């Protein structure tokens, strides 16, 4: 179990001049001992690079990595004592499940009795008991990923377990089983777990704290609730949530928010600088209200999609489409109607230059 501190940047070229030369823009981050973290972001954002820097497979071009205060930037993965689970199952085909799990321990010259016990414990936890003496090559993908995971957990002093999109090759109906298993392991073993994914549902259900990344930048670190309620960047607002946050471009002048030809007075407690601004509101909080209610804007209904559990309403405001998530019952709207949706409320956020205003 270890506390990981990162204070680094990583660039492909020797002399990075602009942002695009960096794989990871300069960042400082701490992963507390025993915490479950997720690195979330689209493909190519640098999350796998960050993971590999933490595990020691890649050395950062500048900066340092510390485990429990010790500088391990030049240490090998073996020396750092981490475990890594890759995107596709990595098992030793010629060995049985038992031998696979025992391999790291045998390399450290543990006694056979200890190895037996340890492998038995981990196999119990991962429910691999019945298959211990089968050849690893013939098993299904989820069993193989469990073996990969087991090889990481079997070492008694592992400092952190790093996951690189491990559920990608697993069939959907087995994914949630494995996810539950991971949470169970976290609960029992209290290890530091860091999970890389591009799937927000995986990230938000697995982790206590999620690091949202894009294009080499860690944009926001926070719990699922934080990311949902107060995304600190428009990217986070867009990325998290299905559908993502709505953004209305407008401007502030004289204490009013102006957009779509209307001016909405802002509450006194909310101070916003004059000038261009973006209003962000999630579809879950964009509710229809009676006409001319305070804080509401008029929009034209473009589409109504019944998804079963709720309805997605697409409405047009000055040429831009906004989406609202409405309960199924009690809706009497048709395409082309004018609907008033409340945009100003306690869940509304304001953004200037893509960053949130406090």
């Amino acid at each position: 179990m270890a506390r990981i501190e990162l204070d680094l940047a990583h660039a492909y070229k020797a002399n990075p001049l602009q942002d695009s030369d960096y794989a990871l823009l300069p960042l400082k981050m701490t992963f507390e001992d025993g915490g479950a973290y997720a690195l979330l972001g689209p493909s190519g954002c640098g999350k796998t690079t960050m993971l590999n820097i933490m595990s020691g497979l890649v050395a950062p071009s500048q900066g340092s990595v510390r485990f429990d205060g010790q500088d391990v930037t030049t240490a090998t993965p073996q020396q750092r004592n981490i475990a890594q689970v890759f995107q596709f199952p990595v098992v030793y085909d010629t060995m049985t499940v038992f031998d696979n799990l025992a391999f790291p321990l045998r390399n450290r010259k543990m006694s056979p009795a200890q190895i037996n016990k340890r492998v038995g414990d981990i196999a119990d936890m991962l429910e691999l008991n019945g298959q211990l003496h089968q050849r690893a090559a013939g098993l299904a993908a989820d069993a193989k990923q469990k073996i990969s995971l087991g090889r990481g957990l079997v070492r008694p002093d592992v400092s952190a377990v790093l996951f690189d999109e491990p559920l990608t090759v697993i069939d959907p109906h087995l994914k949630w089983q494995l996810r539950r298993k991971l949470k169970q392991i976290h609960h029992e073993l209290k290890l530091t777990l860091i999970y890389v994914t591009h799937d927000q549902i995986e990230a938000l259900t697995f982790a206590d704290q999620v690091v949202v990344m894009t294009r080499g930048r860690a944009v926001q670190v926070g719990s699922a609730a934080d990311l949902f309620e107060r995304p600190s960047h428009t990217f986070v607002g867009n990325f998290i949530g299905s559908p993502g946050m709505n953004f209305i471009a407008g401007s502030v002048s004289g204490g009013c928010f102006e957009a779509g030809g209307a001016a909405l007075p802002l509450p006194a407690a909310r101070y916003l600088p004059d000038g261009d601004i973006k209003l962000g509101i999630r579809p879950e909080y964009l509710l229809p209200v009676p006409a001319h209610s305070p804080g509401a804007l008029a929009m034209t209904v473009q589409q109504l999609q019944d998804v079963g559990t709720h309805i997605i309403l697409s409405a047009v405001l000055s040429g831009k489409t906004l989406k609202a998530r409405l309960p199924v019952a009690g809706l009497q709207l048709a395409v082309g109607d004018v609907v008033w949706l409340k945009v100003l409320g306690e869940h509304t956020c304001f953004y200037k230059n893509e960053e949130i205003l406090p």
Partner: protein
Amino acid sequence: MSTTTKPVNQKAWFLILPVLICVAFSAILPLMTVVNYSVQDIISPERKVFVGTEWFAAVMRDEELHGALLRQLTFSMAVLAVELPLGILLALSMPASGWKASATLVIVALSLLIPWNVVGTIWQIFGRTDIGLMGAALQGLGIDYSYTSNATHAWATVLLMDVWHWTPLVALLGYAGLRSIPDAYYQAASIDGASKFAVFRYVQLPKMRGVLMIAVLLRFMDSFMIYTEPFVLTGGGPGNSTTFLSQFLTQKAVGQFDLGPAAAFSLIYFLIILLMCFILYNWMQRVGTQQKESNHA
């Protein structure tokens, strides 16, 4: 062949008709001729007597044939025993990427590109004690080396020539197999604390199984049919110590015009190869599907 589902279309037979005609002309017709000869005694162009399986029986009892077969098997086994480990070792030593990889590949593969009779000529000269580097060097070391009069030396030279000529094939196949191993396996092995030998034994060798099977198949078949190189180098001598099956057959067919026995032996030779090819091919397919399953599961 690929195993994904394909639409069934019997009209595809028209597309393979040209191939069938070509191969029929160059394979089936001659083969029928050979079968024809193998069951007849051709005393003269006018007098042909049907003798059934007599030639086959005679051929099986032929002492010379047994000798040639034994020599051939020994040679093929020796070739595999040397070329496989050497080729794998070479594949492991070659750089993985960059200009060094390309340069090494080209240099190593040079010997594969040389026409086979030229290979024989090169080694024939190379082994001569008067004008050849190897011959002169061995003479200088005090060894009374002569591939024309000493059977052991002749064997060693033929073997060395084959190793020089064909090890790069095994190496290239092994190299291709090695490059297809994803980095994650090496990373996981490093994280598990595996020694270099453990990495070779548990990661590299299993993943190379498919290509190595192909290498075994190709090398065994080709060495079993070898003709030009030993013929040019030693001519089958001294005596018949380096006369392998192909040369033996050619001597019988064209040299002595013993058409009947030659034809009978041709068929037996062909059948032996077919049998081994079939066994190895099936084995390869089985290993191939196993690997595919373990990759996709």
